[in-house]
């Protein structure tokens, strides 16, 4: 069975940095419709800084790697996604036990629970939580059922995308979008979109070695 080694976590982070850079304009455009038009710019700045920090000082293990990413996001993103994604990586770092798929799934769940606690968002508030919680559920369930990590992460990424799509028609109840009330309906939530990219990046990298 494939394991989640430090290099694989690094590949995940780098793939996510690549994806947010590729989708930078799209994320900012989504955010300009219902927010403050900085999500793509902020995530690009944060993830570029995270990769630079990993390059400057290669971490000793997976937990150290995730912590470096967390502290960089918390410091460099600038917007609310900094503390939120930062908390996700920070809690993952604290929870990461070993390189087993089950340990990764448990750490990811701990990270998502950290996001929920930090943002005080619930399902259907139209936030990144609407993509992350279904992804954590799907991942836990698939690993628990004995599926390979790559299959489980594929299921998680699909669940994240369905979660994102399920809240597109809704009125936002958290964050800047909630200032807009009814006008936030029928827009893709930018945080949910960047969260889908995070899980897609995991599916594209982890469990493939």
């Amino acid at each position: 069975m494939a394991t989640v080694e430090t290099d694989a976590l690094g590949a995940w982070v780098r793939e996510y940095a690549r994806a947010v850079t590729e989708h930078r304009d799209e994320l900012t455009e989504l955010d300009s419709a219902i927010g403050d038009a900085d999500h793509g710019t902020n995530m690009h700045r944060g993830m570029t800084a995270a990769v630079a920090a990993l390059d400057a000082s290669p971490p000793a293990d997976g937990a150290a790697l995730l912590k470096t990413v967390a502290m960089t996001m918390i410091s460099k993103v600038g917007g609310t996604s900094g503390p939120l994604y930062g908390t996700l990586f920070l809690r993952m770092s604290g929870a990461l036990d070993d390189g087993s798929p089950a340990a990764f799934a448990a750490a990811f769940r701990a990270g998502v629970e950290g996001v929920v606690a930090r943002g005080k968002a619930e399902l259907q508030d139209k936030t990144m939580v609407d993509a992350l919680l279904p992804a954590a559920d799907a991942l836990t369930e698939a690993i628990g059922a004995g599926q390979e990590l790559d299959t489980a992460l594929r299921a998680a990424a699909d669940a994240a995308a369905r979660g994102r799509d399920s809240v597109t028609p809704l009125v936002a109840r958290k964050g800047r979008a909630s200032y807009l009330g009814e006008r936030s309906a029928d827009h893709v939530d930018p945080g949910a979109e960047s969260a889908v990219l995070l899980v897609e990046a995991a599916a594209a990298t982890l469990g493939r070695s």
Partner: protein
Amino acid sequence: MAAVGIVVVSHSRPLADAAVELARQMLPNSTLAIEVAAGTDDGGLGTDAVAVSTAIAAADTGDGVVVLMDLGSAVMSAETALELLDDDVRARVVLSAAPLVEGLVGAAVVAAGGADRDRVAAEALRGLAPKQAHLGG
């Protein structure tokens, strides 16, 4: 006399500096510690939880710190900053729900007078009262 520190968290460095200038106008000759954590390090709009935790540590003399903030990520960065502090420092910090400018002026005046942390935090929350009384709102 207590020496309570104050921290201003804002998306904008100029906004934070101007708010502090406005408050300091009320405090001639005061050595009150008012620390600012505002903006991104490239001069843009944004907040940085690591900078907030550094500012709290700098403002803390052992008598407590009251943190005033603007909106959005300033609030979540301040909460995240608490997680980065030592337990004993964290226990001395109050994150204030007061409006930034009015809360800062009210808090700074009583803090400069040697009030304790809870009094400073209460005064920040009362910051809107004079305006509400004047406008009848």
